[in-house]
């Protein structure tokens, strides 16, 4: 069953917290992975792979650079589920 936007955001926040220690409540849609959450490219790949597993979607390497904000990632995952 497809996850809702809120479920994806909550799941993503857990993954980000696990990888970086950033508090889950700070992982908001408008936050930038690099500028606001200070996530580097290596951590980003770890987050991407864990998100693929959690939401059963495929996020190609070339797509990752387009995911600037948490909202971008949530939107992509939401679309990729269908």
């Amino acid at each position, binding site marked *: 069953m497809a996850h809702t936007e809120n479920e994806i955001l909550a799941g993503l926040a857990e993954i980000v917290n696990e990888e970086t220690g950033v508090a889950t409540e700070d992982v908001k849609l408008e936050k930038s992975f690099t500028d606001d959450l200070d996530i*580097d*490219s*290596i951590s*980003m*790949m*770890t987050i*991407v*792979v864990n998100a693929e597993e959690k939401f059963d979607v495929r996020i190609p*390497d070339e797509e*990752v650079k387009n995911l600037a904000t948490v909202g971008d990632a949530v939107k992509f995952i939401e679309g990729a589920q269908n």
Partner: protein
Amino acid sequence: MAISLTPRTPVAGSRVLAYGAARGDLVVPNDDLVGPIDSSDEWIRQRTGIITRNRASEDVGVKDLALAAGKEAIERSGIDLDALDAIIVSTITFPYPTPSLATLLAGQLGRPDVIAYDISAACAGFAYGIGQADALIRSGAARNVLVIGAEKLSDIVSPTDRSISFLLGDGAGAAVVGPSEEPMIGPTVWGSDGDHWDTIRMTGSSLDFRDGKVDWPTLEQDGRTVFRWAVWHTAKKIREMLELSGIGVEDVDVFVPHQANMRIIDELAKQLKLPEDVVIGRDIAETGNTSAASIPLATHRLLEEGTAKSGDVLVQFGFGAGLAYAGQVLVLP
């Protein structure tokens, strides 16, 4: 009636008898490299875990590093030089396409008549070599085999490359593999991913350079793709390897993956759920990434420091350009 040919007599198993190591004579700190890539010591430490890397002086060639490591491994193995039947060298930086570095070393080591050849499997090269040595010995084709991973990667770095150059170091690691009544080297798990042939690549060919189309070719990589492959694909293959070798993670004493990046090493250990007390090779912090030499250099360091000991079960796994990979479970000498 069909003729029946006599094969060589196979032996039950093989084992590593001894290691040898040689590192570049120069210690290069991050601060020496950060200027042209607009970086900092802190950035490199955080992203890669590298504090210094060893590089070799201009007059020290990859052949010199390989010879030093090979000599040490042979001396420590205690084998009679006459019982050495093969030399396999993995390198991507010997500056002659032919003849091979292995045949040069055969002469310099005093056994110019042995089986000798180079292999090109980049960072997976040492484990490819151990896989071949194990197969040669068990089939009866060779008694003792010297396997060397040797690189002078500083010959193929660009000071302005932000993808891989600053990670790289120079060194050689060697192992003598001999016969054993009990298998002390498990099945090699190896392969490649030719669809990603150019994920880690040279900036041009030697012909492009000859024709003035490119500057001196250096190494570069797509870091994100490599990281993803190196962690998740490799973790899967290592789990297969443990199963094939008939052991579980609780049986592992020492883990030495290719020293590509500390973050990859950490993430691999996490993915494999290695017990806390497993000793992990982290030679990259001081030596840098030395491609085919990195696994034996890291293993040699652990044995020298006493953090790994004879009889320990080692899991080694190499991965890199060509997206070639190889690994084994083996018992340390």
